[in-house]
Structures are given as structure tokens and as C-alpha cells.
């Protein structure tokens, strides 16, 4: 029986080989592997996997097409609801979404939905035909931010015939996909092509445009019938401990921005430097911490340590990424909390002072609260510290738009359809949720596009 077959895992490059460069770690399926894996899908009548997907990709339908070797058709099927499959196939936490719901997962391993999506998108990129560029004539809509939320909202609106302009503050598009997630996990070529695809739908992209400063939201509403805010969670959190402003202590955003966006890895050909030294400590246990740690190895650090105050079980990073980080030789110091940093003479960080923790009673999140063990201080020698304890919603647009209502922690408040406290102004993605996921940002962008369409074309409905 087909479903008894074991899940086919992608081939990966060995840890020893991959830590020396920034190329992708998993190699993806061959067409034969993809078809074999697709045949494991039992084509449920009432597919639960689709319910697990924030953008409701037609999973059994595209997988059936893959099983039949109809890769171009499979790609079209995915793109009906997901404009960025090559990205999602790589960075979505499928194990918590579609694959978690897969019936095969009850007794064995779920279908490798993410890997199949990735295969189809990559096949399309290499073999597919470019769609002709479209131009739209409908009402004008402004989208702020070119991360997954903005790109999805813009793409969907363009398909519905609206004239969409994306305003992006940075000099490159893609949001976190470009400046945050490193090349070896999400090649920038792929992000660029996904952005190109959205442009072929007729979307105009203006970079170097900081909304709030260049134009306010109110000013945009004079030229555009509706605005979607997808400005992300760009504000790095710090712990507020002594020594955190020493040289050599980076926020993960700064560190990754230097490397991914400004290409500091090829300094001085590219003029933005990054300095890491031999011993790097990364504070945090999420995807961002794993990325910062693995980037450090690739930049030549001899010893990279993750400092996390709970245990590996509580780490929010994807299991797959933790596994890869371990394989590559990253040291995990769990139940460890930095409390101060100390400097060498010239002001550069030299030691991280830490406390040993143990797990106590569960806290509000249901995870057991880490509690400091008395007199457990110790000092860890470091040349670089990277603080990856999370990001808050980007405060700039709320700061410059006093009428826009936000939660105390900074998230923009929206209705179920993504409408903010301002008429005709919608928001979604990390600016609403705080640091979340690519696919939830895309789901928000989709939902807002539908709502904007209802607002601007009531007759159609």
C-alpha cells in the first residue's frame, strides 16, 4: 500500500562542506523523488492539510499533479493561492501547519508537503515560461513594505485589476526574506524572482521610500483609494543589562543586515564591514538565533555558542534548523542567562557574565519558567555577542500616524478582515502580530486584499 512507504527526505550537503560557504543546505528532490513522494498522498476527500495552511494552498490537488509528472500544472495550482511558493517551501514551519494535520502523520510520517512545494516552485523557475507583463487600470492602492505581507497583498490586488504601488524603505525588496534569513536557507535569487513575478502582475515598486517620513499615511490616501501597511517587526529588543552597548554586542538585526543586505562577507569589495573574532555567543533560541549562529560559523568563527535560558524543548526555532545547527558544530548552552557584558581595555566586549538557570513552575505561555540558581555566576570569554531575543512591531508608522490605534506592545490593531482604526487603511503581517511567520504574513496580505476589493468594488460582490 502506498501510504506505508517511508517519507523521502531531501539529500543534504554534509555539515563539514556547508559551513564553508553560504550555499543552500538541502538539495531538493529530483523529479523521480518528487513523483514518488507525491504518490504517498492518499488524496483525502476532506483534506485537513489545507485547513492547516494559512493561505489554503490546494495541497492534494497540486500533489496529484506532481504524482502524474504534470509539474507546470502543479505550479499553476499552487500559485492560485500562494504567490511565493519557492519561499514558503523553504521557510514555512510545515511541521506545525499542513504536515501536522496530514493523516499519514498519525501512524507514520506525513507527506513532505513543504519539500514538494519547493520542488514544484524550483522546477517552474528552471523550466517555466515567464508570464507576460500586465498593466492594470483599476483604482490605485498603496502597499507599505515589500516583505511577504506586502508582496502578497500587492500581487492579489494586481490580479484583481488594481493599480498597486509598493513603497519600501530599504534599497532592496523582500523585507526579512532579504535582510534577515540568510542565503544558505533562502537564496536571494529566489526572493528576487518572486518579487519579479509580482512585478509582472503589474505592481510598481518604489524603494528608498520611508512612509511616515516621505509621505504620511494621510498623504497617501489623497492619491490612493486604500493603503495596506505591511511594515513588519523591525525593532530589535535588548535585555537592558550592563555592557549591552559595548562594541561587539550586536542585535541580530544589525548583524544579519550587515551580512545579508550589505554583503559584509565580501568586505572590502563591498564597503560595509562586520567584525566577529573567534568566539561568538548568540543569545536566544528562535530561528533568528539559529541563523545568526550559523552565519557566524560561515564567517569563520572558531566557536559559536547559543545561550538560551530554558531548554531545547522550549526553543521556538524549527526543529530542523536546531538539528542542522547542532550538526554544524554549534554549542548549545541551555539554562544559561547572560546578566552583564564586560569589556577589554579598548571597549570591545570580552566576557559574558551568565547565570545558570533551572526550570520552575509554568508561566503564562505554559512553558516552565526559568529560575536563576543562586551563586551560579560564571564568565564566558567572547569576542562577539549577538542578541536575538526578538523583535517588536516597527514603531515608525504608528509614531507618525497618531490616529492609528496600537496595542500596548506596539502591534497595530485590526479587525478580522485587517482594517485598522483608520478608514481605508489595512494592515497585516508582523506589524500586527509581532514577530510571527512568513506564511501568516502572507495570509494577512491575502485577507486584506480581499477586503480592499470589497471596499473598492462593491458591485462585484
Amino acid at each position: 500500500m502506498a501510504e506505508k512507504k517511508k517519507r523521502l527526505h531531501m539529500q543534504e550537503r554534509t555539515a563539514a562542506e556547508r559551513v564553508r560557504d553560504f550555499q543552500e543546505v538541502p538539495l531538493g528532490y529530483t523529479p523521480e523523488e518528487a513523483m514518488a513522494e507525491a504518490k504517498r498522498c492518499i488524496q483525502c476527500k476532506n483534506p485537513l492539510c489545507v485547513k492547516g495552511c494559512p493561505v489554503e494552498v490546494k495541497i492534494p490537488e497540486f500533489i496529484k499533479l506532481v504524482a502524474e509528472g504534470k509539474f507546470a500544472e502543479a505550479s499553476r495550482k499552487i500559485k492560485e493561492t500562494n504567490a511565493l511558493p519557492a519561499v514558503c517551501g523553504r521557510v514555512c514551519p510545515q511541521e506545525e501547519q499542513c504536515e501536522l494535520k496530514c493523516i499519514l502523520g498519525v501512524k507514520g510520517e506525513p507527506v513532505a508537503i513543504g519539500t514538494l512545494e519547493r520542488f514544484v516552485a524550483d522546477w517552474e523557475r528552471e523550466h517555466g515560461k515567464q508570464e507576460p507583463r500586465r498593466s492594470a487600470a483599476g483604482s490605485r492602492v498603496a502597499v507599505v513594505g515589500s516583505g511577504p505581507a506586502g508582496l502578497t497583498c500587492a500581487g492579489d490586488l494586481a490580479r484583481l485589476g488594481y493599480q498597486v504601488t509598493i513603497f519600501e524603505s530599504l534599497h532592496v525588496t523582500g523585507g526579512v526574506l532579504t535582510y534577515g534569513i540568510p542565503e544558505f536557507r533562502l537564496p536571494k535569487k529566489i526572493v528576487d524572482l518572486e518579487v519579479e513575478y509580482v512585478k509582472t502582475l503589474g505592481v510598481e515598486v518604489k524603494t528608498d521610500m520611508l512612509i511616515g517620513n516621505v509621505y504620511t499615511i494621510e498623504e497617501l490616501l489623497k492619491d490612493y483609494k486604500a493603503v495596506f501597511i505591511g511594515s513588519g517587526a523591525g525593532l530589535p529588543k535588548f535585555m537592558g543589562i550592563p555592557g549591552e552597548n559595548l562594541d561587539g554586542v550586536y542585535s541580530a538585526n544589525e548583524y544579519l543586515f550587515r551580512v545579508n543586505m550589505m554583503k559584509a562577507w565580501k568586505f572590502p569589495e563591498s564597503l560595509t564591514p562586520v567584525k566577529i573574532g573567534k568566539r561568538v555567543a548568540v543569545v536566544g533560541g528562535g530561528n533568528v538565533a539559529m541563523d545568526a549562529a550559523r552565519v557566524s560559523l560561515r564567517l569563520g568563527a572558531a566557536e559559536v555558542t547559543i545561550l538560551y535560558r530554558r531548554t531545547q524543548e522550549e526553543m521556538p526555532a524549527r526543529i530542523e534548523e536546531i538539528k542542522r545547527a547542532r550538526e554544524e558544530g554549534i554549542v548549545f548552552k541551555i539554562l544559561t542567562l547572560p546578566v552583564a557584558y564586560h569589556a577589554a581595555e579598548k571597549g570591545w566586549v570580552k566576557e559574558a557574565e551568565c547565570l545558570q538557570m533551572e526550570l520552575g513552575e509554568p508561566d503564562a505561555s505554559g512553558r516552565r519558567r526559568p529560575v536563576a540558581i543562586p551563586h551560579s555566576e560564571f564568565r564566558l570569554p567572547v569576542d562577539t555577542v549577538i542578541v536575538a531575543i526578538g523583535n517588536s512591531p516597527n514603531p515608525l508608522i504608528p509614531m507618525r500616524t497618531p490616529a492609528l490605534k496600537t496595542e500596548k506592545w506596539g502591534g497595530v490593531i485590526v479587525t478580522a478582515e485587517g482594517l485598522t482604526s483608520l478608514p481605508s487603511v489595512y494592515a497585516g503581517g508582523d506589524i500586527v502580530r509581532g514577530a510571527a511567520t512568513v506564511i501568516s504574513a502572507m495570509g494577512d496580505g491575502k485577507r486584506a486584499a480581499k477586503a480592499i476589493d470589497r471596499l473598492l468594488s462593491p458591485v462585484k460582490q
Partner: protein
Amino acid sequence: MARIIKKELLNENVSRLTVDAPHIARAARPGQFVVIIPREDAERIPLTIADADVAKGTITIIFQIVGATTTVLDSLPEGAEIAHLLGPLGTPSHIAKLGTVVVIGGGVGIAEIYPAVKAHKAIGNEVITIIGARNKELLIYEKELTAYSSRLVVTTDDGSAGRKGFVSDELKDIIASGKKIAEVVAVGPVPMMRVCCETTKPHGIKTVVSLNPLMLDATGMCGVCRVTVGGQIKFACVEGPEFDGHQVDFAELTARLKGYKDVEKQAHDHVCRLLKGLEK
């Protein structure tokens, strides 16, 4: 892309560019700055908007050539395109009718105070301007600033022009003369701003400084520009660059500005080699 309409050398190390950027000219307010990436492989560097002409749709920037990216910027001729120009950035200066305001500029900071001097004059304040440089050759903007100042005082370290000494010497004398000062604005090298703040603090005279920490995105996303003001972390690119000088931790700012000195030299050497190669 933004075209360089005009390029002038103000002295051997300082250039002035007039750049076509109507959307920035329209929105710019005193105290704000732009980020420039002169060429795709260069750094994002912050530079003050020294003037904006809404009718012509242009902005003016004045910069000192100190390292790799300013060298690259200076290599672009009139008519060339700047790869990326983003602005206006930061929070505008708070300009209100106060009475007498002393505006102080040191080094390339002299050009950076021009919008503030103009705005304070326009709102009806008496503006006393003090500008200082190491020597006569490095003085800039004397004529432009005179037009908007009730009084302009020049100081040079070596006495080759104006008063021999520092801008803070003149500030001390004005305070000692018993003149009622509502506010001091100081823009220039960190030691200069620090001394100005130390001078005014005992007299309780509000002193605004424009901080120049390292910046990267300059949109509030990386935190490299963080400064400690009144014991709290502030991101200078969004919440500043202007802050209450009496609250600023200048020692920390100084230390954080030094972090990249060694590698910056490497970048500078690289750029100089490249530019030399191009000349041949």
C-alpha cells in the same frame, strides 16, 4: 537613483552637492538627514539635509571626505546618479519662538546648522551663531550663515581667522555677559558638543545636540545607532538625531564610534586603490 545637479568644493576636504530629489525636498524639515549609497557596493551613510529647495525639487548635502564611502561619493561628478538616496529621516528639530538662541557649529557641523539658523530666524528668534574650525582654510558657510544671524562669531584653533580658541570659549563669554539665552544648539564633533553641554549645564540653559552615531539602515531596524539618553536607550535615527545634551552619555557614544576604525581603514585603502586604477 538621484542625479547630482551641481558639485562644489568648499575646501580641500569638504564638498557640497545639489541633488535632484523632489519628494525629499518637499518633506524635509530642519534637523533631518538622508541616507546615501553612492554606488551599489558602498555603505549606507547618513548626511544632514543642509538645505532644501521645494520649487526646484533639490536638496543640498555637505560632506567631509573621511573614509571609504565619502571618498566614493566625492568621486561622482556633476550629472552622475547616486545609486540610492533615502530621506528625510529622523525627527525634525523643535523650532519655537523662544527669544535668544545660540547656534553653534564645529567643523562640517557648520553646514549642518544652516537649516536651524534659518528656521530660528524665520520664527522670530534672535540668533547668535558661533562657528569654529581648526584654521581659516577649513571655515565654511560664513557668508550664508551671516545672512540669517543677528551676530556671527568665528573661532579658529590657531587664530588664523576670528577669535583664537574654541566655540565654547565664546559661549562662556556670552553666558558671562549676562545675556539671557533660551536655548543652545550645538552640532559638530563629539568633544565639542560635550564641552558645550558642560558649559551650559551649571546655568540650566537647555542645550540641544545632534548626535552622529554609526548608522546602518537608519530606519529604526538595526539598533547600531543606539545612544543612552537620560539612562534610556534611544535609536538616534528615528528618535533623534537631536537630543537634550545634558542627558546624553557622551563617553559611550565616543566608544561606540571607534568600534570599526581599523576595518574602515581597510575599506578606505581598497577604495583609493580602485579609484587610482580608474584614473589610469
